[in-house]
């Protein structure tokens, strides 16, 4: 039986053509979508998806266009969406970082109003787009739950009004006021201090630097009449000699120096030039590990090294020598260095990290003889980041001790912790009636303050900086203050004038003067906006200085070398002076050399370890300068048997849960002579105590086992043959006629490869440029929400970093004659050839035969996911959680992962990281920032926070790739080369990492892949990684006598 049908119209009944046409679509009338979306303004023929993309992009474009404006200065609730804030669109603000030690001009990335990443500012002549690990990590310090939250009086919360009233009353009646700060590079703060002193004539300003450069300042005062640190041009120097000077790590302006230094290390066929770097040092530093030649000496022999170098150069150049005991390091290193320096006159540079003015005068004398002033040393733009004179600090301590000071104002300084005189200061401060403290935390010094007026974090404040003469930069807040804090400059002005002022207005005041001085043709508003947008301002500066130092007097005043055991104090790349010690990213960042996290330790030589029967982690008691600590030891090659190293920055007691109780405080060991602080100690006693601490090392095997993972050659060989050291593996393949033919591994296929028709993302890493500083590790952690797992888990070898820097030592055992069988291409016979080879020991089985633990070579190799074309991880995943993208990426689908870990086992590079626990919820990992509400704010919303039980790894910052592609698509073109940068690449001070599309023949990475030095690690297993390395070239060549 037919089913009854009802019809709505005759049309339906008849199925007329009109009816059919009308009912064909969802709507009876044609929607004008096409027209709307193909308007000329958009120029796109778009479907619904494209419409959404365009929609998103117009938002982002509008936002980016609006970026030039300063951010809102008051907190605005999100019910009223601020114009600049568009969900999912990042805003960038230029700002400045200065912690009293390190300066950086930065770009702050904010999302939905919260800063999530700090990078170097491209426009800054100092940062040049790069940022150190500490600058990278500074964004996390903003969200430190243990920052000071309110103004306090003796530990009790009071209101700002009360605090201001009481402090002003005390200041008015004070007979002697001392304002203590680090070097002030902010013109606005300087003006505020000047005004403060004007209002309170009994006030004096004392500045000090945690790691003092007072020696340089005094020496330059004596030699040039200028108590400043000049600019050093490492890029202009062909021969660089560093004497206990970690200029790539921590000295003065390391990021800037690394940028310059690496320019002459990125050797290429077009520019076959390589600087020569000789380092004399007491313990292995980052700089020393990058040197072409390296010699060791004891810390107190510093004067001898410099004086002898002076004399050798003087006798070569015909200048007068000074009186100094003859001294030479092993291998006649001083003699050789002198010859090379003289040969490179005008393109030579000698730097010393000493805080002894006499040493620095001699160094000035050397540079004078070498003609470095005006060529490699520039007096036109001296640094203002080091202004602290040790003597004035000592004066303050004496005054306080004598009870002559009523009010001490601590402006973001922590003298009790960070000075060797800390204990004395603590004692002396007890005699000061009122201590006003501006520190951002209730730290060791702030705990003693009568009034605590907590300062903003720099990402919350307005400010400015003049790190070098004529180079200015602005700080602008990227977020409203999180806690009830106040910019310390505002506090100071309030104390001075009694009126509440805004730092913003103060700043504009200072800068209107600067505007006039700069001679800018723009009006002030335009000038202000452009400077705020760019973050930096350069005004012309000039200046020369002529040397008038008394080297003979300096030589006679040198510190005497001691005979006994000595301690060398150093800063780590991670914690530095320790002011950011409560930053878990920094605590978990492996030290480039020791690969140790979450601790400081006494570095000892192998010889000493054998003598005292010590192994890594054994406790020793270290006694020197009336101070002693118990600390674990760590055997580090490259230092003498009677020299020990200990990092400062640890042993905090009031910094927060991540820092307190980690390591020991090393500052009190520093030798103070007449107030001058020397980061060393003589007459050290080290005794084994029997205790043991497991050190959290991320790498426990320190040699490369003779494997061809890091390829290297010498400059001499490179000049002869550009592919020197780059021996590529071949596989003998049987041909049809039965003969064998050598083939490159990539030509052998067992399955059809992937096709990359569009992009093919790849990365090239220049091992000659990479200094191993580790900034990339923290940058990656910030970009990709990499969890912090804590010391215990690192000990279990479960650190989560997506990029690591492998460090291998090879022990130099001199030269030996080796007989090798070589294939003679003409006769097709094997022939015996004798070669003189350098016997670098790299194998565990040869350890026993190591003669010399001091003379070592170090290589650094950044390793992240290689995004293999034939990825071993992809084939083994049972659920297809890791797959190959059309653009050559190994995609990791966290949601799909069941956690078999087969992929990690099958990864030859061991770059995959597993979420063993729920790091963002399990209470054991309370140090992981994402465990607190505040810490969660640092998470990058573009990157998933991985749950327990899934695998994760480097994705080449796929979120950035997608962002860059969308932007390019909108512009209707391919992404420009260099427009998409991975986080590691962006922050790299050495520009060692180049990322891009190898399918683009004009791209930098394509060119580097074609470079003669380019190679794939483990090429023979034919996984075809998308990361290529460039052979390391050491400049072993030395000038013949």
């Amino acid at each position, binding site marked *: 039986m037919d089913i009854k049908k009802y019809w709505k119209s005759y049309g339906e009944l008849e199925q007329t053509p009109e009816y059919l046409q009308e009912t064909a679509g969802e709507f009876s009338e044609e929607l004008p979508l096409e027209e709307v979306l193909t308007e000329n303004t958009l120029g796109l023929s778009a479907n619904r998806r494209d419409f959404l993309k365009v929609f998103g992009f117009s938002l982002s474009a509008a936002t980016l266009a609006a970026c030039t404006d300063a951010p809102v200065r008051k907190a605005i609730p999100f019910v009223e969406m601020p114009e600049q804030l568009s969900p999912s669109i990042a805003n960038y603000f230029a700002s400045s970082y200065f912690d009293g030690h390190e300066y950086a001009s930065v770009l702050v990335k904010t999302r939905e109003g919260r800063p999530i990443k700090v990078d170097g500012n491209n426009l800054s002549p100092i940062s040049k787009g790069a940022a150190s690990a500490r600058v990278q990590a500074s964004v996390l310090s903003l969200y430190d739950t243990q920052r000071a939250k309110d103004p306090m009086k003796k530990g009790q919360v009071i209101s700002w009004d009360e605090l201001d009233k009481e402090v002003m009353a005390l200041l008015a009646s004070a007979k002697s006021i001392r304002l203590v700060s680090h070097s002030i590079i902010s013109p606005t703060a300087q003006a505020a201090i000047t005004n403060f002193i004007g209002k309170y004539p009994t006030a004096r300003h004392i500045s000090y630097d945690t790691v003092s450069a007072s020696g340089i300042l005094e020496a330059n005062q004596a030699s040039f009449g200028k108590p400043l640190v000049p600019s050093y041009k490492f890029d202009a120097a062909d021969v660089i000699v560093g004497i206990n000077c970690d200029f790539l790590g921590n000295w003065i302006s390391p990021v800037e120096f690394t940028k310059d230094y690496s320019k002459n290390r990125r050797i290429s066929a077009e520019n076959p030039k390589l600087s020569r770097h000789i380092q004399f040092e007491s313990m292995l530093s980052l700089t020393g590990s990058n040197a072409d030649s390296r010699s060791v000496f004891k810390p107190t022999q510093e004067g001898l090294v410099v004086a002898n170098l002076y004399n050798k150069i003087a006798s070569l150049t015909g200048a007068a020598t000074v009186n100094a005991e003859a001294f030479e390091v092993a291998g006649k290193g001083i003699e050789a260095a002198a010859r090379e320096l003289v040969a490179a006159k005008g393109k030579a540079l000698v730097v010393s990290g000493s805080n002894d003015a006499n040493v620095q005068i001699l160094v000035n004398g050397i540079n004078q003889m070498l003609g470095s002033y005006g060529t490699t040393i520039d007096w036109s733009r001296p640094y203002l980041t080091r202004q602290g004179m040790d003597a004035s600090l000592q004066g303050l301590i004496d005054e306080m001790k004598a009870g002559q000071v009523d009010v001490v104002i601590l402006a973001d300084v922590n003298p009790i912790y960070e000075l060797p005189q800390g204990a004395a200061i603590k004692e002396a401060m007890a005699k000061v009636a009122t201590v006003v403290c501006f520190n951002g935390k209730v730290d060791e010094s702030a705990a003693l303050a009568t009034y605590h007026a907590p300062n903003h974090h720099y990402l919350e404040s307005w400010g400015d900086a003049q790190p070098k003469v004529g180079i200015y930069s602005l700080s602008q807040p990227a977020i409203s203050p999180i806690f009830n804090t106040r910019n310390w400059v505002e506090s100071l002005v309030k104390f001075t004038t009694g009126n509440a002022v805004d730092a913003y207005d103060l700043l504009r005041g200072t800068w209107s003067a600067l505007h006039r001085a700069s001679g800018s043709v723009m009006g002030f508003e335009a000038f202000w906006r452009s400077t705020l947008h760019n973050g930096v301002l350069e005004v012309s500066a000039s200046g020369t200085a002529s040397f008038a130092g008394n080297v003979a007097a300096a030589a006679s005043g040198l510190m005497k070398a001691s005979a006994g055991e000595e301690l060398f104090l150093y800063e780590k790349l991670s914690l530095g002076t320790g002011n950011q010690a409560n930053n878990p990213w920094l605590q978990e960042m492996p030290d480039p050399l020791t690969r140790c996290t979450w601790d400081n330790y006494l570095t000892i030589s192998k010889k000493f370890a054998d003598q005292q029967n010590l192994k890594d982690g054994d406790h020793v008691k270290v006694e020197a300068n009336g101070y002693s600590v118990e600390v674990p030891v760590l055997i580090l090659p490259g230092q003498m048997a009677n020299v020990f190293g200990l990092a400062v920055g640890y042993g905090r007691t009031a910094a927060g849960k991540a820092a307190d109780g980690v390591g020991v405080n090393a500052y009190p060991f520093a030798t103070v002579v007449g107030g001058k602080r020397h980061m060393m100690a003589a007459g050290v006693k080290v005794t084994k105590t029997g205790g043991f601490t497991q050190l959290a090392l991320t790498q426990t095997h320190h040699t490369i*086992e003779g494997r061809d*993972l890091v390829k290297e050659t010498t400059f001499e060989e490179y000049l002869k043959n550009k592919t020197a050291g780059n021996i590529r593996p071949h596989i003998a393949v049987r041909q049809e006629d039965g003969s064998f033919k050598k083939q490159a591994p990539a030509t052998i296929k067992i399955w059809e490869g992937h096709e990359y028709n569009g992009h093919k993302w790849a990365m090239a890493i220049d091992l000659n440029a990479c200094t191993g500083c580790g900034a990339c590790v923290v940058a990656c952690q910030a970009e990709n929400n990499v969890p912090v797992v804590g010391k215990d888990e690192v000990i279990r070898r479960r650190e989560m970093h997506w990029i690591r820097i492998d*460090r291998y030592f090879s022990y130099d055992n001199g030269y030996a004659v080796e007989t090798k069988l070589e294939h003679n291409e003409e006769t097709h016979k094997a022939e015996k050839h004798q070669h003189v080879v350098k016997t670098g020991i790299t194998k565990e089985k040869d350890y026993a035969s190591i003669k010399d633990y001091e003379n070592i070579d170090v290589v650094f190799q950044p390793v992240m996911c290689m995004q293999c074309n034939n990825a071993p991880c992809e084939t083994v995943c049972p659920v297809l959680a890791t797959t190959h993208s059309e653009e050559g990426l190994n995609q990791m689908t966290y949601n799909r992962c*069941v*956690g078999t870990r*087969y992929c990690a086992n*099958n990864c030859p590079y061991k770059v*995959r990281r597993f979420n063993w626990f729920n790091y963002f919820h399990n209470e054991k990992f309370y140090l992981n920032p994402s465990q607190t509400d505040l810490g969660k704010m640092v998470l990058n919303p573009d990157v998933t926070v991985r749950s327990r039980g899934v695998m994760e790894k480097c994705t080449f910052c796929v979120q950035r790739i997608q962002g860059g592609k969308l932007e390019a698509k909108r512009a209707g073109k391919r992404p420009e080369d260099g427009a998409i940068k991975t986080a590691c690449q962006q922050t790299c001070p050495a520009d060692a990492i180049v990322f891009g599309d190898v399918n683009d023949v004009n791209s930098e990475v394509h060119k580097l892949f074609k470079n003669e030095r380019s190679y794939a690690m483990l090429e023979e297993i034919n996984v075809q990684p998308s990361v290529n390395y460039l052979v390391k070239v050491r400049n072993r060549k030395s000038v013949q006598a």
Partner: protein
Amino acid sequence: MTYESPLRRPLITGKTSYKQITDDIAGPVEAKPTKWWTYGFAVSFAALCLYLFSVGYLLFTGVGVWGLNKTVDWGWDITNFVFWVGIGHAGTLISAVLLLFRQKWRTAVNRSAEAMTIFAVVCAGMYPLLHAGRPWVIYWGLPLPNTFGSLWVNFNSPLLWDIFAISTYFSVSLVFWYVGLIPDIATIRDRATGLSKTIYGVLSFGWNGSAKAWSRFEVVSLILAGLSTPLVLSVHTIVSFDFATSVIPGWHTTIFPPYFVAGAIFSGFAMVLTLLIIARKAMRLEHLITLNHIDVMCKIIMVTGSIVGSAYITEFFIAWYSAVEYERYAFINRAFGPYWWAYWSMMTCNVITPQLFWSRKLRRNLLAVFIISIFVNIGMWFERFVIIVTSLHRDYLPSSWAMYSPTWVEISMFVGSFGLFFTLFFLFAKFLPVIAIAEVKTVVKTSSEEFIAETAKKDGIQVPIEVD
């Protein structure tokens, strides 16, 4: 009726009859549990509780409670998995391959060997499930139609093959074992009363002992035996692919499939021996599980042990011959690296001890056999540990080299997995006949000591029958 030469060793010693056999085997099922059973069960159950506790802790906290790390991502978990799978090998071999080869001596041991197989596979199967980071979604490893879009499994992954191999093996073994049990359950049903009668009645699927039933039984047994035979080879072959198809030196080896299969039979027989030596004593089944049975199994251990030993030596030779430095290092590191003790334990237990079975005296010395079987079990556990951990802990990049040691959770899970195994085994021994009653009865008239003596007498042959 087949004719057995009187020269063959008897498979049943002493005087026996069909009734006697039924009584002997069904007796323990019907009687109250013995004191020894109760103690044994209590200990096993305690260990099972430890297992459950550890597993609960693991599931609650995460795989991080184990000692694994970024370099060694598999440790005791997969070691134990392969160990248990290996143990589960003898059951199928005895029931299927020996059935097809008409090896009648299998009748006394096949039932418990099969049960052992199933329980061992249960223990093994728990590891891939529990080792996963997110076990609650492990079913994504099955090619199920799903609501997640076109998500499918990766047929390239040996782990997926594993899932198929193990589940097939488990289901076929279970069916084979159960089908074999049906006539015996019916026997118990017929002797039981009350509730037991009902339960065994249901379990016996209405077996009536008719000629038709027997005929179908025989056919099904043969079909299942035919199905199972390739599984004996396939399961461990596929398990070995987990390693053999990888790029890790020490794993990437074509020798793995035969070597793993031999090793599995080796360890499976060792475990069968360990259990049977205890069971025949505890359950007084010496006349059914005779020294001849043990002797034959010792020979299989010796042969498979020698295969395994040759494989070890071949691996070393090939590592040297390949001239691949990573491969060479992997093997030198096995023998002389930080885990040397594991390697030499393996070599001693697996290569040296089975060679003792060349001696007939030792093959018939129960204590010696028992000790050697334990040694083989230990050695085979170490073999898996050596392959997995020592290959992983030092692979290509020395920067990532790491050491691995288990935590209490891994140890208690391993100890606890024996609890699971023995709890199941004790329950089996109490509630089901540990020897195939029907099958043993088929050899009474051909291979029992009594019958052989009769035949000999009838044929006038002087037979030196041994009475051990």
